[in-house]
């Protein structure tokens, strides 16, 4: 059995944001695309957490949606346990693979049907994937799942609006676990929660990972949360990977100028009084990204080459300055 559970190769996704055909013809406009994700390659090891961090517009949610099959890649490939998810996956095999992964979304209220009782919500994957299971067995399994995430089996009779935000996220986790997946994509699972509730959910996710050997792809904009959860981290900027490294190494020794800037920007809660460098600029629009390295307009190390040539991801970092030994 290979060590790698999920791998993406040159994953790319464009969105067509062109004006309607007639307007294009009359006004002489070109077709326009948002390059949400470009050439992203990474691999996720079995039983570990791979985190994708980035600011808004960096393409992290688009990658999550492509992995679980909610969006089709424009180019590139995703392999899960050695099987391509992009090509030639249909019928029974697709079903068998699909039940092995699940997704948890940011806003539990939007991802839980408000008209369904919690039992029905949590049992839905069971109805889809374990059709032969009887009603009683299914209900027993739902009770088990609710207990597992820290709710009580009696909560199954209630509706989502009767729960707090943290409890709703627990319901979403119970539903994700129902089909016994081994891989879960978590898209900002705690961003909508208060810190004390966030701590509860993060602890729960870690416990479940240890108990069931789950593999997570964890998407977040919060570096502290990522530091706490991840084994490996990929830093995204304008749809491209800027740097990939083990979590420890990335925080101890950030190499890409963007990673360094991000770490600088995190508020210093320890109050060590470390001096802060001033962060410059904002993320440009992905419709019209700068040529060359996407980070060059904000980069203190940019030179002529950075302005024209896109740096490849070599040895875990995509930066000409690092490759040339200037950083």
């Amino acid at each position, binding site marked *: 059995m290979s060590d790698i559970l999920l791998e993406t190769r040159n994953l790319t996704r464009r969105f067509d944001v062109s004006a309607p055909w007639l307007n294009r013809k009359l006004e002489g406009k070109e077709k326009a695309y948002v390059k949400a994700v470009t050439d992203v390659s990474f691999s996720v090891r079995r039983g570990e957490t791979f985190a994708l961090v980035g*600011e808004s517009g960096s393409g992290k949610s688009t990658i999550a949606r492509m992995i679980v099959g909610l969006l089709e890649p424009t180019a590139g490939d995703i392999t899960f346990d050695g099987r391509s998810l992009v090509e030639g996956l249909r019928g029974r095999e697709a079903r068998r693979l699909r039940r092995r992964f699940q997704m948890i979304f940011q806003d539990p209220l939007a991802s839980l049907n408000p008209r369904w009782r919690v039992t029905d919500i949590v049992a839905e994957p069971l109805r889809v994937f374990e059709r032969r299971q009887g009603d009683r067995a299914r209900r027993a399994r739902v009770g088990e799942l609710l207990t597992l995430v820290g709710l009580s089996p009696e909560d199954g009779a209630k509706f989502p609006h009767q729960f707090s935000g943290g409890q709703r996220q627990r319901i979403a986790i119970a539903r994700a676990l129902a089909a016994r997946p081994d891989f879960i994509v978590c898209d900002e699972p705690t961003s909508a929660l208060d*810190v*004390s509730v966030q701590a509860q959910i993060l*602890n729960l996710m870690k416990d479940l990972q240890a108990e069931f050997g789950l593999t997570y792809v964890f998407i977040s904009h919060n570096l502290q949360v990522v530091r*706490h959860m991840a084994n490996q981290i990929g830093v995204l900027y304008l749809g491209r990977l800027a740097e990939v490294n083990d979590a420890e190494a990335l925080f101890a020794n950030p190499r890409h100028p963007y990673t360094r800037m991000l770490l600088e920007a995190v*508020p210093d809660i320890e109050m060590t009084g470390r001096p802060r460098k*001033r962060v410059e600029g904002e993320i440009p629009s992905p419709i019209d990204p700068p040529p060359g390295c996407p980070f060059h307009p904000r980069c203190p190390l940019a030179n002529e080459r950075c302005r024209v040539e896109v740096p490849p991801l070599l040895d875990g970092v995509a930066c000409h300055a690092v490759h040339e030994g200037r950083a």
Partner: protein
Amino acid sequence: MADPILSVRDLTVEFPTRHGILTALSGVSFDIMPGEVLGVVGESGAGKSMTGSAVIGLIDRPGRIAKGEIHLQGERIDNLPEERMRGVRGKRIGMIFQDPLTSLNPLYRISEQIVETIRTHLPLSKEAARAKAVGLLDRVGIPDAARRIDDYPHQFSGGMRQRVVIALALCAEPDLVIADEPTTALDVSVQAQIIDVMKELCAETGAAIMLITHDMGVIAETADRVAVMYAGRIAEIGPVRAVIKDAKHPYSAGLMGAIPRMSADLERLVQIPGAMPRLSAIPPGCPFNPRCPHVFDRCLTHRPAASEIEPGRRVACWLYPGVQEA
């Protein structure tokens, strides 16, 4: 010692409903000194935004201030007629809200909005007001301010819009700025810039800041003192370093432990069981007692008031001697 800019005493805000009276704030007292940054932290529903709204007299109906007093530079403002209060808001108290798009009118150019605000509060000609506005936009870090001032709000990015809102809040040279989650809608790299700008400008003009946020990191970077709120009450208030390094109230201690750190490699975060009670179901005694790891008999029956346990430090917890009953 100088007189405080803002002084809030025993503030209690109630909402009469069909099911009885809900107490949104209870016995909230604090001072803000000239030039000081007071952080107000808490989780959703703790009453931090309500405190800000009460100070500027913008509590939504049917809510009302049932008890307590608010003084701005010695003058009582919680009972001012709406007419006079409008002269206080914007002129003497500037406001910055979380979502810059809701504070800016999308149909007017930035220049019109700032010039109008300046001229409402200061006796300046149109030209002078515009020159002042350009200067302000330049100060908050908007590149090419003289040209950008005639753009509409949608032509700015989120971070730039928040800079405009800061300029707008400071244009009448207020003595106090109330910033309610000013950086929550922004990305981390932009957030740091906005905090820097806000701090610098207030230091320059001598304005005091009441900084309302759920983000302890922002408080640590910015505030001089911090008030931790829980269920409509102040759980703890004191110098920011003391509260962060050595929290006295079990809730603030739990809150600090719940934050994932960049440096420490903890396997598990400190966990406060349960969630904040709803306003309709605040338990008797200390409101934190169902979640508290140190709870004892007295907590279940007697409600503690935020009382001084060290100079400059007030805590509402029966663990400490000298704490009064509310």
